[in-house]
């Protein structure tokens, strides 16, 4: 049994539990160390990852609840490798942010942060559908406490809205997951199992797939968030404290779209093709709606909230292009959006503090001259947000659009407008908060050293990925292709078993560099 992934998954919660029992000063250090070691561990996974090998690596596969056919099955492939990295990377600044600032009941806060990291990592590595559902639902518990206990403004109402929205989705998914396992077992005559690979190997009849698909899709679209299931987003983004929002916006939003690739496309390929246009409509509406609303907001947090809806729309578009390029672009874009949002939120946190706690852009203006370092870093991130060539977001979005143009030209063409709109809200955000008139309450100088230490590495990673996107592309290629193969074959009208012919239009990575 390979304990490696279990170590990674349960390290954060163990460290933060230990931290809760220790005196405050040592406890803080232990919690930070927990997040740091997890990041280091993921870094070794990336370097040791064998991008030529097909299938899962570092597999853990143990019977957990044999009576229910639930296995403790973990594994890493190109699909989740960089999402693990994103999680581990962003939890470090979030944890440090919370640990170094005056936080009420800090140990409890850090404990919930650790539990949240464990749940998110677990959801990303789980290869058993029941285990995935378990981690997916578990994520909600710490976030519920974090937003409700340490939130800003009308936090309890925001929390309840957030939890009810997302849990409605995940409970429907629970029913769908159980039904999927049971029906697959009775359909194929095998033992009851929730192993995603086994489920994918025994596809259900199309009619059954369709209602299961709708339940899964609802859960993941709420989580994403996608228009029109985004009702929880505004209140939650307003009420959530910055370190929690970093995790929520950058990482949590990826779990839903990740699950489309991990679970829905391989296990329900017929239904995915059947509902492809519906999902693309949601995706395109999310892009347009999110982008348009993002440039009419006065609070930077809400700009990010709506731009996330738009970005997640892009990712959904890439996935439901049902094309290997689109899927690869989607994974790339998940990572990019996480990095960019994480960095932007740190900037916003710093700016809010400089502007006397105000949450609107008008109160923040004129910071650029006072804080040149902050302004520079902010500019880099803002340019990445609007997918300037040279940023990793450019690579991600172009891959998604290529994937879309191949079969779904109309959708991709409309979505391209979103790229232009992103420039509008990205530049507006930067301009209003950094230039313009100096806000009345603005005080203080440049970013302090600790905050710089949180922000600079993220910016460095963004720049590095812009220069060398192959780091991700090489390692994700095999996995993303494998995830869409079944659905792609059905979409192309081929029997599900036939492999994709080599002469079909296929962009090589080198062509788009």
């Amino acid at each position, binding site marked *: 049994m390979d304990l490696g992934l279990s170590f990674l998954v349960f390290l954060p919660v163990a460290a933060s539990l230990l931290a809760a029992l220790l005196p405050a000063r040592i406890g803080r250090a232990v919690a930070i160390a927990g997040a740091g070691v997890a990041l280091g561990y993921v870094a070794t996974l990336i370097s040791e990852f064998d991008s030529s090998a097909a299938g899962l690596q570092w597999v853990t596969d143990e019977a957990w*609840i044999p*009576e*229910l056919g639930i296995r403790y099955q973990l594994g890493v492939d190109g699909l989740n490798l960089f999402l693990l990295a994103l999680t581990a990377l962003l939890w470090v600044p979030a944890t440090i942010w919370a640990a170094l600032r005056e936080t009420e*009941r800090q140990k*409890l806060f850090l404990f919930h942060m650790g539990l949240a990291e464990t749940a998110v990592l677990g959801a990303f590595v789980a290869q058993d559908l*029941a285990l995935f*559902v*378990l*981690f997916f*639902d*578990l994520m*909600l*518990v710490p976030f*519920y*406490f974090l937003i*409700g*206990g340490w939130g800003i403004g009308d*936090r*309890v109402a925001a*929390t*309840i809205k957030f*939890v*009810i929205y997302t*849990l*409605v989705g995940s*409970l*429907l998914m*629970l*029913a769908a997951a*159980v*039904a999927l*396992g*049971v*029906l697959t077992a*009775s359909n194929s005559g095998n033992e*009851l199992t929730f192993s995603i690979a086994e489920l994918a190997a025994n596809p259900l009849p199309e009619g059954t797939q369709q209602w299961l698909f709708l339940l899964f899709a609802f859960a993941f679209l709420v989580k994403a968030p996608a228009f029109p299931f985004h009702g929880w987003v505004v209140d939650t983004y307003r009420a959530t404290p910055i370190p929690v929002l970093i995790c929520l916006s950058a990482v949590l939003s990826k779990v839903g779209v990740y699950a489309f690739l991990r679970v829905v496309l391989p296990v329900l390929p017929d239904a995915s093709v059947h509902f492809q246009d519906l999902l693309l409509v949601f995706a395109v509406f999310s892009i347009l709606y999110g982008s348009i609303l993002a440039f009419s907001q006065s609070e930077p947090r809400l700009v990010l909230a709506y731009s996330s809806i738009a970005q997640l729309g892009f990712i959904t578009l890439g996935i439901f292009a049902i094309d290997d390029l689109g899927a690869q672009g989607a994974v790339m874009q998940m990572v990019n959006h996480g990095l960019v949002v994480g960095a932007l939120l740190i900037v916003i946190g710093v700016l809010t503090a400089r502007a006397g706690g105000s949450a609107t852009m008008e109160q923040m203006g004129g910071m650029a001259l006072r804080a040149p370092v902050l302004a520079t870093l902010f500019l880099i991130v803002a340019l990445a947000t609007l997918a300037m060539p040279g940023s990793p977001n450019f690579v991600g979005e172009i891959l998604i659009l290529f994937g879309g143009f191949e079969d779904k030209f109309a959708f991709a063409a409309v979505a391209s407008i979103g790229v232009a709109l992103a420039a509008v809200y990205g530049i507006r955000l930067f301009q209003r908060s950094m230039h313009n008139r100096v806000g009345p309450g603005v005080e203080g100088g440049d970013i302090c050293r600790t905050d710089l230490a949180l922000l600079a590495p993220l910016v460095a990673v963004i720049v590095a990925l812009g220069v060398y996107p192959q780091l991700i592309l090489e390692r994700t290629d095999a996995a993303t292709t494998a995830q869409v193969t079944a659905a792609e074959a059905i979409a192309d009208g081929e029997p599900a078993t036939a492999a994709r012919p080599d002469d079909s239009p296929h962009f090589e990575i080198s062509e788009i560099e």
Partner: protein
Amino acid sequence: MTDLLAAAKSPEIDYQALAPVLATAGGALVVLLASLFAGRFVQRALVPALTIGALAVAIVFCVVNWPGETEPVVAGALAMDTLTLLVTVLCCIGGIVAVVLALRDGAVETAGPGEYHTLLLASVAGMTVLASAENLVTLFVGLELLSIPLYVLCAASVRDRRSLESGLKYLVIGSVGSATLLYGLAFVYGATASTDLGSIAAAIGDTVAVGDPLLLAGLGLVVVGLAFKASVAPFHQWTPDVYQGAPTAVTAFMAVTTKVAALAVTIRLTAHAFGGLEAEWAPALAALATVTVIVGNVGALTQRSLKRILGWSGVAQAGYMLAGVVVGTELGLQATMFYLSAYLAMNVAAFAVVVARERVSEHGDDIESLRDLGRAAPLLAWPMTIAMLALAGFPATAGFIGKFYLIDAVVAGDYAWLGIVIVVGSMISLGYYLRVVAAMWMGRGEVTVGDPPRTVRAAEGWSPEADPRAQPEVVAVAVIAAAVTVALGIVPSPLFDVVRDLAAGFPGLG
């Protein structure tokens, strides 16, 4: 003369198989006699200790006899099979909890410790008899033995008008339920000419037609009667009132144990005696389960009293568990009993916290009494939090595995839509479970924790804020129950091992 003696000979009794019932029933007598001696030691310490002892002995007998007899004992009157033993263990645990939670309760003082504990033991004995009933007459005896002590226990706080109202309400409505059940039993006897469950099963489809109106009317009335006991909607109206009025220790006891016993006998009747009528009762029970889940969860949404919230939530939970009975499969039986066991742990944790808070808070059992408990008393706040999350079905608790198991069972039993009902019910339930959690952790008011009192007076002694150390046994119950809830959510195999044996007694199950 010898012929006469032989005819008068009592039936052969397997005393070892019967030992769990004997322990609780005998314990009731011992406790009653012991309580005749006045004196603080006897009343305050010996009587509760003897009660716990009797219940513990019953549990030990259950464990020793596990997995029980496959054939009915006492001339075919009682089936001391795995289901009965599990029910007995759960009810005994519930009884022990009720004793511990009531140690400082004013209700015990006013009702008299001897009476309180004797009635408790008698009720547990009744639950075992009801769950094991292989004969319509035993079934009714068990039901009354369970119910009548509970009517009295609900009114144990004699000086509290709400407690009296609760007892009276339970008595009146419970009697209606019992009468309905008895009427139904008479119909069934009339149709099948037998009181023995095995003979009834054999008669259906043989000497009496499946569509026989007398038989179906009897079945319907029996189901309604049992629905009253298990607080299944629309026969649940008594539940919130009785739960709120009764002394909280009694509520904690009856909330779980009556459901355990009533659902067990429902399983025995549907799966065993009326197995041939599955096409008739399964849709009816499915409809009842659906109504119960919706009514219970919606009813809880607007409540402020914790005991009423738990009452309504109990109605909803009864609906979930009934769904497992509906499918009439081995898996359904196992899932129902699994959920009942998990439900015992999570409900006990919640009620223990309510007991601890209502003794010391000026808000009584109002949700306000939990305000900022996360800061003031984490040892109480965490068990309550875990209990609420478990009842709502969050993962890493037994509630999640239980719901998973139930959904698994109903989908496999071709009732996939019932799985959706369970899920929709869980969604509604978040509205009130999370409100309770929010009150503990997300209050905005500053709490001033003054000097906590070190003791809690037995009677209606309120103090503004209390130290959990003043009532360690209640805190211990809460913490242990919450720990069990989480442990079974992470390592559920022991409980799966327990419920695996259940189906042996029901060869007719699919």
